[in-house]
């Protein structure tokens, strides 16, 4: 589905980002996985064989650093001559109750989740806008942005901003054949979730009609649809991938 396409996936060292990079490469894409920690992509990608002509390459930079983002996107353009897909997956999450919200954490979440996403979207769209076939951008948001959640006021606000910027960018970039969509994962079985209190987790799984957590691959497959030409007439949308959750 992505043969011949070049994609960037931010936050690809683990969890959902790693799964997205793997699924894209398995579907024939040249994938640039990004992370801040040097070596964290190779840690899993070195033994990974997509068996499809696709491949994984690494880029290490901080998405809140505009100059570093520009350098990274330029590297992709110089090496491949194009950029077809961007998944803004990198994000940080601090869950704090109202009255105990740290300013430092609040700023960090807005910096990474919102400003970092905007940085990458701006740069990618400048490359995509000059291509005959444009491109596709997927921003990872969260079900908390749509439904709200206790202890996640700031996190949900940053992800709400991601939905808003997705809709505006979709309108502005549509004439350049650039599609912009958001995917809202529900509770996903990542490393972070494995540390959660089992009783609390059981209660929350009880709210999922499908009776299980999302696997990172479930989210990755939704991203595959949005980046591929299968969704060529879809833009400005928020796709919930939450197993039909009642929050």
């Amino acid at each position, binding site marked *: 589905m992505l043969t011949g396409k070049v994609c960037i996936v931010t936050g690809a060292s683990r969890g959902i980002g790693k799964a997205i990079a793997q699924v894209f490469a398995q579907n024939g894409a040249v994938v640039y996985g990004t992370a801040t920690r040097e070596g964290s992509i190779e840690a899993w990608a070195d033994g990974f064989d997509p068996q499809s002509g696709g491949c994984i390459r690494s880029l290490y930079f901080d998405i809140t650093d505009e100059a570093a983002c520009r350098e990274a996107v330029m590297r992709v*353009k*110089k090496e491949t001559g194009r950029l077809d897909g961007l998944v803004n997956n990198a994000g940080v999450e601090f869950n704090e109750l109202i009255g105990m919200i740290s300013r430092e954490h609040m700023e960090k979440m807005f910096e990474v989740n919102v400003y970092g996403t905007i940085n990458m979207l*701006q*740069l990618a769209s*400048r490359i995509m806008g*000059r291509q005959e076939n444009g491109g596709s951008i997927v921003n990872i948001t969260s079900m908390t942005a749509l439904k709200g959640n206790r202890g996640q006021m700031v996190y949900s606000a940053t992800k709400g901003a991601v939905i808003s910027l997705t809709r505006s960018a979709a309108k502005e970039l549509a004439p350049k054949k650039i599609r912009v969509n958001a995917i809202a994962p529900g509770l996903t079985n990542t490393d972070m979730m494995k540390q959660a209190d089992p009783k609390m987790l059981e209660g929350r799984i009880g709210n999922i009609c499908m009776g299980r957590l999302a696997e990172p691959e479930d989210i990755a497959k939704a991203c595959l649809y949005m980046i591929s030409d299968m969704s060529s007439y879809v833009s400005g949308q928020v796709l919930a991938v939450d197993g039909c959750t009642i929050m």
Partner: protein
Amino acid sequence: MTNLEKYDHIFMDVFGIDHAALGEAFTFKDVPAWDSVAHLSLISQLEDEFDIMFEAEDILHYGSYENGKKLLAKYGVEI
């Protein structure tokens, strides 16, 4: 083709002008045809030609034919 020739050619192409029109007086303020669409087209062509990517601030402050030469030097392109 020298970098200056490439640079001039882009301006002539974007604004549909003769070479004689280029110089210190060719500024965003003084050239009515230099609107936001022409500005983005100019930036795109310069980025493609010289294989660079401008910082957002530099795009905003590109401003003139002469100032553009100074900005390009910042990206290692000597005009």
